[in-house]
């Protein structure tokens, strides 16, 4: 019985480790961290440390640390100073974040100055893997109504689908049920940008005209058709053009301008 309990606990611990490893490895950018480099460091660093220690012993370099008491006092003082500096740094970080958020709101208001807007913060994200809605901290008390356009510093976020007194639900353009009528900024080719369940950063542009001349890297903006989104709001850029078996099957992959994973501040266009 005792043995079963022990093996059960070990099983749970192993599972937790596996889960953490899975989360870490599937979310780490493989280009920035070299696993081999890490393994090599793990092996080499202790040996290097040992050899350095040995070398110091042989050369009597370790006698440099004779006055241990004095060093300890100095160390304590430095530790105290360090904790004070860390505290100041944390306060500075908080101020810096606040400053950045306020700047972002100011920039947003200036960029879309022709519209009457209400700033808001994202307070909740979707808990499902297959839909991408957001909740913001402004609602009908702030003048927010259904079908109002929501934008961010970089471009279009989505539109309001429902409101309460103090919150509003926003369907993002990358939601799988979303379809936005768009135009390319240079060639003025029309397209429908649909969200996918695959990821939170791209849209598929379909319904391309047979004679459309869309080019990679071109900017995409809202067309104003459909009665929800205001015309001329930046949506993203064309990342890739996928040619189908015939011209009508062709579609383009649009890289959304807004980083939905890091989105914090939004503006709701009220007029």
């Amino acid at each position: 019985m005792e043995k079963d309990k022990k093996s059960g606990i070990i099983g749970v611990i192993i599972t937790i480790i596996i889960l953490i490893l899975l989360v870490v490895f599937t979310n780490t950018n493989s280009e920035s961290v070299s696993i081999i480099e890490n393994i090599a460091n793990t092996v080499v660093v202790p040996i290097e440390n040992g050899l350095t220690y040995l070398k110091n012993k042989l050369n009597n370099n370790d006698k440099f640390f004779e006055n241990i008491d004095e060093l300890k006092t100095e160390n304590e003082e430095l530790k105290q100073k360090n904790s004070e500096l860390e505290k100041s740094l944390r306060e500075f970080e908080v101020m810096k974040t606040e400053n950045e958020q306020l700047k972002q709101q100011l920039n947003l208001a200036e960029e879309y100055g022709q519209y009457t807007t209400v700033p808001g913060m994202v307070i909740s994200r979707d808990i499902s893997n297959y839909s991408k809605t957001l909740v913001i901290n402004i609602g009908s008390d702030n003048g927010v109504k259904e079908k109002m356009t929501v934008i961010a510093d970089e471009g279009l976020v989505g539109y309001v689908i429902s409101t309460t007194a103090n919150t509003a639900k926003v369907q993002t353009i990358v939601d799988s049920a979303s379809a936005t009528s768009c135009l390319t900024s240079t060639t003025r080719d029309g397209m429908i940008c649909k969200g996918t369940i695959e990821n939170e950063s791209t849209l598929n542009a379909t319904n391309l005209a047979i004679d459309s001349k869309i080019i990679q890297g071109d900017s995409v903006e809202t067309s104003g058709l459909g009665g929800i989104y205001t015309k001329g709001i930046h949506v993203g850029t064309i990342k890739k053009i996928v040619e189908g078996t015939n011209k009508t099957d062709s579609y383009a992959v649009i890289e959304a301008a807004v980083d939905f994973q890091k989105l914090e501040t939004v503006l709701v266009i009220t007029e």
Partner: protein
Amino acid sequence: MKKVIIHLFLIIIFIVIYLLQAIFFTNFTIAGVMPNIFVILVLYIGLYMGGSMGTIYGIIYGIFIDLWIGRNIGITSVCLAAIGILGGAFDKNFSKDSRMTILLVGAICTVIYEVASYILQYLVLGMNIEILVFVRKLLIELIYNILIIIIIYPIIKNTGYEVENVIKGDKILTRYF
């Protein structure tokens, strides 16, 4: 009194799980996929408190989830209620002593919930159909949910029988016949 405490606990645990899903698991993902702990919670209620209780809790939880973040009220309620019913059915037909049974039941319920939810979202909201991407995400979610069930299985087992004794009382089916 004990029954009231259990129901209060189920309300608190629901709020905790909602916050975990909305704040913690949005960042703690496997290849961008979150687990679905609500399925595990409703299944737990169905297994240890009966199918009717599972259904009622499934509907109530679903309404709140839809009110807080959903596109429209109903889809999550229907799917979670189905999991509650399934939990009740599994309770009557399988032994809950085996870890493997709970894992399999959890896996089956996760698949049924997500497939039903996806079909309903397609029919009601006009969601685009992307079968291959959906299957890939579902498989990752399945693995995630199984890992979570393995981790919390000791809690499920220890609290489950206590809850069952309090809620079902005399109506409890004999487990070891």
